């Protein structure tokens, strides 16, 4: 049976400073510090377990450029279990580990609220007419791209090559509902103005089928082998092909369908004939085909459109649900998650087959295209008019009142009240609950934290390291009584049996 699909999203925001010259690194640091400082959430990140240069295929290419871990920049862990930091030259928020797609949407939305609050606080500190502005998009229109990465828990025993081959088919074709839309093209060999509008922000930037890089020669399947949990049992599939979405329903579909497809691959239920011949070119073909009618060649020679392939994956998913159930994407809190994902998936593909009507308020590239077409028509603009590119950027502007996606009546999945609560409260069905609660209760005693451990300084004796190698432990159900029974971190340490600092073989699963 497929593993429960623990999942999360990391979003890098575009950042500019207006009225003053500032490097994007400084601007990003100001945002993170303005937020973390204001809320006393300046717990340091622990880099001890970071291995972004490890390749899932078990080898490293000589000319590969592994990502570097930058330890000197603003970096904090929040009481909702998320990480908020400066990555390269962007503010980035990683959601806490979530058990369902709905919770990923909730914490991605909470991330937007954190970014908005950061801008508000940072700009209040700056002189008049000085402003830092962020954008939840993926490209500057000049060939520079930044990511919105997804992460999914998969079984270590699943052969990686098989996983990569099948998931590629989904990544290439899911663009038709995951894409955020883009005016123009940034692919090097394109003639100027060859593409006026395309489905995906990111499709122009993928040059390889599989590989370790994330900043150059980007691969459709990223092989970073950094599980942040028990490496003998698990992989964390690090997905770099996605766009950042403004539509909550698009994020829900993106994470929900991908979770189900991964479970199908684990259980041998993915249709084996659906292998794309030349997926790198197919990424761009799908992105540039707003009619969704162009054929893609499969490795068995058949020709199918992206929509036809998605319908075939959906039908296999419905069959998988009927035979095996979808407990791997359901949780006690969200028992109908899998059913809801399948229904929305079918509704969306059906709408897309009919020109998109019915999904204008859920699919970003359709909403953005309607706006751009209407504005262009009303003002009789050429397709390459700068105002259309400005509209594209402002669809993602994180300033309330300036964000154009807010004006497109996108359907909401998350209420404002829930998003505000999720800024500080962790999800309850993963180890993020334990991390978040420790940071809420005893922030002054937490020396550092990362995905799979917490380090306490309880003031007496050595630092105490609490390893959390099981993403599905440390949940509310498993730790609520523990938190009730402990009034100090020392009591927690004692209750966990951590009298000594030499605990490298300890697993939290031994105790809970």
């Amino acid at each position, binding site marked *: 049976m497929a593993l429960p699909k623990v999942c999360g999203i990391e979003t*890098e925001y575009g*950042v*500019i400073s207006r009225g003053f010259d500032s490097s*994007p690194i400084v601007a990003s640091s100001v945002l993170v510090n303005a937020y973390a400082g204001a809320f006393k959430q300046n717990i340091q990140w622990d880099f001890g377990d970071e291995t972004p240069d490890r390749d899932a295929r078990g080898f490293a290419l000589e000319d590969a450029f592994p*990502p570097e871990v930058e330890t000197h920049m603003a970096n904090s862990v929040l009481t909702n279990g998320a990480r908020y930091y400066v*990555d*390269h*030259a*962007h503010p*980035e928020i990683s959601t806490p580990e979530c058990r369902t797609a*709905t919770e990923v949407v*909730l914490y991605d939305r909470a991330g937007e609220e954190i970014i908005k609050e950061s801008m508000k606080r940072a700009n209040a500190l700056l002189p008049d007419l000085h402003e830092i502005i962020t*954008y939840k998009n993926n*490209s*500057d*229109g000049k060939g*520079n791209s*930044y*990511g919105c*990465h997804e992460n999914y828990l998969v079984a270590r025993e699943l052969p990686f090559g098989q996983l990569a081959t099948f998931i590629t088919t989904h990544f290439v074709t899911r663009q038709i509902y995951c894409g955020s839309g883009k005016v123009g093209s940034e692919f090097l060999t394109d003639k100027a103005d060859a593409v006026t509008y395309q489905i995906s922000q990111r499709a122009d930037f993928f040059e390889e089928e599989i590989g370790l890089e*994330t*900043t150059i020669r980007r691969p459709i399947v990223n092989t970073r082998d950094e599980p942040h949990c028990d490496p003998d049992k698990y992989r964390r599939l690090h997905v770099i092909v996605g766009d950042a979405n403004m539509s909550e329903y698009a994020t*829900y579909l993106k994470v929900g369908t991908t979770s189900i497809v991964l479970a199908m691959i684990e259980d041998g239920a993915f249709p084996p004939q659906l292998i794309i011949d030349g997926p790198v070119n197919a990424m761009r073909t799908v992105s540039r085909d707003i009619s969704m009618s162009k054929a893609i060649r499969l490795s068995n020679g058949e020709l199918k459109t992206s929509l036809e392939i998605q319908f075939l994956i959906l039908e296999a998913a419905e069959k998988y649900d009927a035979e095996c159930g979808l407990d791997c994407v359901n949780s006690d*809190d*969200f028992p*109908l998650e899998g059913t*809801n994902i399948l*229904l*929305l998936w*079918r*509704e969306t593909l*059906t709408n897309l087959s009919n020109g998109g*009507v*019915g999904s*204008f308020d859920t699919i970003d590239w359709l909403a953005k295209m*309607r*706006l751009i077409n209407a*504005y262009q028509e009303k003002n009789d603009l050429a397709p390459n*008019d*700068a*105002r259309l590119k*400005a509209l594209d*950027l*402002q669809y993602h502007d994180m300033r309330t*009142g*300036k964000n*154009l996606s807010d*004006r*497109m*009546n996108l*359907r909401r*999945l998350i*209420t404002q*009240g*829930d998003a505000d*609560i*999720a800024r500080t*409260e*962790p999800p*309850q069905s993963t180890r993020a609950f334990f991390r978040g609660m420790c940071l809420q209760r005893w922030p002054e005693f937490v020396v550092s934290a990362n995905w799979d451990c917490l380090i306490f300084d309880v003031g007496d004796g050595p630092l105490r390291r609490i390893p959390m190698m099981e993403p599905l432990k440390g949940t509310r159900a498993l730790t609520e009584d523990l938190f009730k029974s402990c009034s100090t971190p020392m009591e927690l340490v004692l209750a966990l049996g951590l009298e000594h600092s030499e605990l490298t073989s300890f697993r939290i699963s031994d105790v809970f």
Partner: protein
Amino acid sequence: MSEKIRKSVSNPEVTPVEVIEDLALVKNAQAENLKADLDNLLDEIDSILETNAEDFVNSYVQKGGE
């Protein structure tokens, strides 16, 4: 997560497909509403847009990330 969040997010607003097919009229009405809203937005969009689109677009330069 609080009881409140759980309650309000545990039921994504998904309309079952078989119902949707009976709801062509509702869908048309929704489409009309969306169109009216878009028309309203177009009437005021120039006050929301950056004043010099060309400068704004040219100056929006990012470093690659990830």
